[in-house]
């Protein structure tokens, strides 16, 4: 079976993206001070990446697991986590 990238895996899932409101917000000034950036390794969707030395995050493919929230050394300050608004976000067809 051929190897799938995170993007390809997320492409299999059904999302209803909330264009008006991102459910996870980053305070990047805190992220800049974070050396380890565990979110970039631990996010199962691989949504935290480093671009031009700065953290970049796309909420659109979020699987809503909460891993980034729990591994963030400044959780609640650097990563402000919530579920998407009702009805939005990932919609597992199998689960």
């Amino acid at each position, binding site marked *: *079976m051929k*190897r*799938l*990238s*995170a993007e390809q*895996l*997320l492409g*299999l*899932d059904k999302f*209803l993206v909330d264009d008006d409101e991102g459910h996870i917000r980053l305070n990047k000034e805190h992220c800049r001070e974070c050396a*380890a950036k*565990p979110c*970039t*390794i*631990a*996010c*199962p*969707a*691989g949504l935290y990446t480093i671009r031009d030395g700065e953290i970049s995050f796309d909420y659109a493919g979020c*699987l*809503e*697991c*909460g*891993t980034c*929230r*729990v*591994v963030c050394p400044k*959780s*609640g300050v650097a990563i402000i*986590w*919530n*579920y*998407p*608004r*009702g*009805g939005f*976000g*990932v*919609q*597992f*067809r*199998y*689960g």
Partner: protein
Amino acid sequence: MAEDKFTAIIVGAGPAGSTAAMLLAREGHEVLLIEKGASPGTKNMFGGRLYSHALNRIIPEFWEEAPVERAVAREIVTFLNDGQAVSLNCHNADWARPPYHSFTLLRAEFDAWLASKAEEAGAMLACNIRVDDLLAENGKITGIRAGEDEMFADVVIAADGVNSIIAQKAGLSRMFSARQVATGVKQIIELPPETIEQRFQLNGGEGAAQLFVGDCTKGLQGGGFLYTNKQSVSLGLVVNSADLEHSRQKAPDLLEDFKSSPHIVPLIEGGEVVEYSAHLIPEAGIGMMPRVFGDGILVAGDAAGFVLNLGYVVRGMDFAIASGEAAAKAVMEAKRQNDFSRRSLGVYHKLLEESFVLRDLEAYRRAPEFMENRRLYESYPDFVTSLVTNLFTINGGRPAHLYSKILSQMKQSKINPAKLAVDSWRGATWL
């Protein structure tokens, strides 16, 4: 407002929430079951198996109507080390006969069915609603706020899953640590039913559950799992979230590596991946249990950390269902007294103690500590796979008796006999 007031508002239409809603509604109570997903189950995932006992007491012979996949008749635990794998493989045909021991299932379908049972009983189900906050008066929870809407109840039941925003807002639980939870990732891989039955040596309709320990997690605390559904397998990895931070590979790549191992390839060959999902799992057992009751509020299911991982057995849904049942009984008792204070709702804790929920979590209180032992993920799988492989290897070399083979493999796998003795004793008495 009185006419708008519910006996209970239940946040989250998973197994805990829907069970509580159904039992309260059966007794004629006004119940509002709120779900943030477009329908119940769309936000939920798990490894793959429900132990039947808890639900069978509430909905006798539920399997006659519930969307279950396969009755698990084969249990496999596999130690992995590079090209070597050693399995304990147990088949019991009785498990696949009534009263079925356990079922694999898919949550989108199953949770929707269970919520529909709550609706049938008279509960009001409201989907597409994210609860944003709790309402309180004089320190007692009186309802919930969702966007602009406020809704009132005698009791709010937080059954909103492992991230448990509601219990945290109520001040009943603190944010858990990464060490206390694990991250699970899973792919659903479609295969024809006959192929599944051939590959896992199953009679028609039977299912298999396989757990893996060893280099599938590359030394990180955790393991792999595979559950057979009717026409798909659920394949995944669970890794302690604190360990995952120190992984050299990103989480989705760990699973792709596992998929490409020579032990997994023949099981999924020709299959098609149709979904990828992830979820947190509360793994610290009773050690991470929040206060499960407060003034006007109860906490049930994953939100209360009711999950048990013994390495060879993983349970969550049966605890969720039984805690939902206990929550419903506690609300009914409080309603009889017309007292929804913390003191009155404390009966919930007593009911949990009398049920298997706290009995079992208490009995296995030290299991999470056992699971933190690195040797379980590195040297022991190496020892087991190398030793057993050696036993079956004939190469014309000098004969050695079992005793000396065991001793020499212990040396090679760097097994400290004293630590092995302690770990064995702990395993035998803690798990």
